[in-house]
């Protein structure tokens, strides 16, 4: 089953920023096309830009290609070109077999029709015959878990129910190519897991293009990764983790530090003593002890403070935390400026960019005096790169 299902060669697509120009160009192009004039001039006209520029892709059955990129980098456009909704401006797109689109799965549902009627209409739109839908109907309803509501008009469905019905129909339409664009974010935890399992089943019999901002999902199912930036391909390889890293580097994470709390604490400086500077970014070697030096000042009416240091990733998720309260450290506020060294021990984070959040509390896990979110960024450098966030060195012994 190693047949190629998608092959894209030097694909280019231009878009227009301005509505009026866009319509004008559209009419111009159309007139040329209707009268059969060959278009050779591929220069950008006023207000136009490349939404995709020189993209080439080969995808076989069983492959899962993850497409990463910031908003507006051309991911969804690429999917539309693969499914043949839009035509390229130059280059070719070849697809082999039926394309299933998990993009806005609720598209085409009529609000007045019941779930059952909508299954038949949507099925027909996806190219299934009535017989095929008949034979799959029970499975679709069972998978969507909507048997109670299948005779209810879809307009009474919740967003999640909409998505469940839409996903189920497409999942059972036997696509050879499956295009997935951020659809799984709506369902509840159970259904998400169920969808993921279903997609894993489908991968065996189809080629998948997966667009997501959820790097954990990408790392879990993709066999190759492409990173897009403003329509250009920045990375395209089998090494998924390297690709995810590349995406993180492309998307500049200059979330400026934010301060919250009652303002009774002031952060004078923060520095990573164990790291070194490259291009004004502190770099810390993987597995080295992470030592942070903080200089701060607390209001005089507070006698004792507790400090929490949190390491966050680019997704703003908290990953590692050290809390002075748990380490039974008493920090007396008896000096004008306090200088503190925190050794968080060996850091086995995946290579990449991380941030530090500092918060000062009143004694006994009390009121937040000040919280400095993402007040310092640093990069972890090393070779241990894996699917999990932490790569712990272990003792291995054969018995």
């Amino acid at each position, binding site marked *: 089953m190693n047949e190629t299902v998608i092959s894209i060669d030097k694909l280019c697509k231009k*878009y*227009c920023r301005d509505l009026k120009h*866009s*319509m004008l160009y*559209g*009419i111009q*192009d*159309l007139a040329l*096309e*209707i009268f*059969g004039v*060959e*278009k050779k001039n591929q220069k950008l006209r006023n207000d136009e830009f490349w939404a995709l520029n020189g993209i080439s892709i080969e995808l076989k059955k069983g492959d899962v290609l993850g497409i990463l990129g910031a908003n507006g980098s051309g991911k969804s456009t690429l999917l*539309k*070109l693969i*499914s*043949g*909704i*839009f*035509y*390229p*401006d*130059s*280059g*070719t*797109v*070849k*697809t*082999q*077999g*039926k*394309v299933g*689109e998990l*993009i*806005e799965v609720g*598209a*085409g549902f*009529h609000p*007045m*029709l019941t779930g059952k*009627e909508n299954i*038949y*209409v949507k099925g*027909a*739109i*996806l*190219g299934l*015959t*009535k017989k095929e839908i008949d034979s799959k109907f029970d499975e679709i309803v069972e998978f969507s878990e909507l048997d109670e509501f299948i005779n209810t008009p879809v307009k009474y469905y919740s967003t999640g129910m909409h998505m469940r019905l839409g996903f189920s129909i497409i999942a059972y339409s*036997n696509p*050879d190519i499956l295009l997935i664009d951020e659809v799984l974010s709506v369902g509840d935890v159970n259904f998400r897991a169920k969808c993921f399992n279903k997609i894993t089943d489908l991968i065996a019999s189809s080629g998948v293009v997966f667009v997501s901002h959820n790097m954990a999902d990408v790392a879990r199912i993709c066999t190759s990764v492409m990173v897009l930036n403003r329509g250009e391909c920045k990375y395209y390889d089998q090494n998924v983790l390297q690709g995810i890293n590349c995406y993180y580097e492309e998307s500049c994470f200059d979330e400026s530090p934010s301060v919250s709390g009652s303002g009774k604490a002031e952060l004078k400086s923060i520095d990573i003593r164990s790291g070194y500077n490259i291009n004004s970014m502190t770099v810390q070697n993987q597995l080295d002890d992470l030592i942070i030096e903080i200089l701060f000042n607390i209001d005089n009416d507070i006698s004792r403070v507790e400090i929490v240091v949190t390491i966050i990733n680019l997704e703003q998720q908290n990953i590692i935390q050290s809390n002075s309260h748990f380490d039974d450290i008493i920090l007396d506020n008896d000096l004008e400026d306090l200088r503190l060294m925190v050794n968080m021990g060996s850091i086995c984070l995946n290579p990449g960019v991380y941030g530090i959040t500092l918060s000062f509390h009143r004694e006994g896990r009390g009121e937040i005096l000040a919280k400095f979110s993402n007040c310092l960024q640093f990069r972890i450098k090393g070779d241990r790169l894996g699917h999990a966030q932490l790569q712990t060195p272990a003792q291995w012994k054969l018995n």
Partner: protein
Amino acid sequence: MKNSEEKTYTNNINKTHGFGIWVLMFSELYTAKELILILAKRNVSVKYRQSILSYLWIIIPPVFAVIVFSYLTNLRIINVGDTPIPYLSYALLNISIWLLFANILISSTKSLVDAGNLVTRVNFPKVALVISSISDALLEFLIRLIAVAIVFVIEKVSFGWGIIFTPLLLMPLVLMSLGLGFILSIMNLLIRDTLNILGIVLTMGMFLTPVLYPPPTMEPFIYINMINPISPFLENIHSLLITGTLVNTPLLVVSASLSLLVFLVGWRIFNISLPRISERA
């Protein structure tokens, strides 16, 4: 195996096929037949789900219009001249045929915009959207025919065997409106004024066409009627019904060929332009 269909998309996709594009278009239409039927059924079944008088709404407006018009005629406020059959029957039959034409135009023009994000989110034979949209108009026409038949019986209008051939005259009319609808649906996707303009044009068209009055016999109006592609169908449906013969055959042949041409050209333009327009709509 049906699933192993290969598709290639390039910029000059329409040039690479040459005349074979027509074979592709007809085969696409053939595979879409089930989809067209399902969508057509959906349109009809959805339309009257939230109304009490439901299908009565199909008959009420034209009957009302004809009653007002015949009242005005009786009062001699408007003089329509002699109609070949009693006025009420004449006007009601004509208005049903005109509404078939007008409603197909309106619903096909709206079809793509009504389908919403389906057009830009899923790839499927989009001709199905336009063709299936005429189901409403067809069903309404059939229901109005019942009303027409009742009036015919009341006014004791006799008709001959020519009635079996009248559908043959309706077909080119449907093809013409569908062909125009193909183009208008694309235009409406690009410029939403299309539907409003169409409404005005249709209202004017109805008064320029012998719908509520008999075919004109006076000098300037004869020529207007001659270039009106709809009138030959109206006149011939009448004469087929009553006398079983055709009138003005050359004009009818021209109108029928024009209809077929409009349909084919409209369909082709639709196929070429939809992917280009949907990315800008």
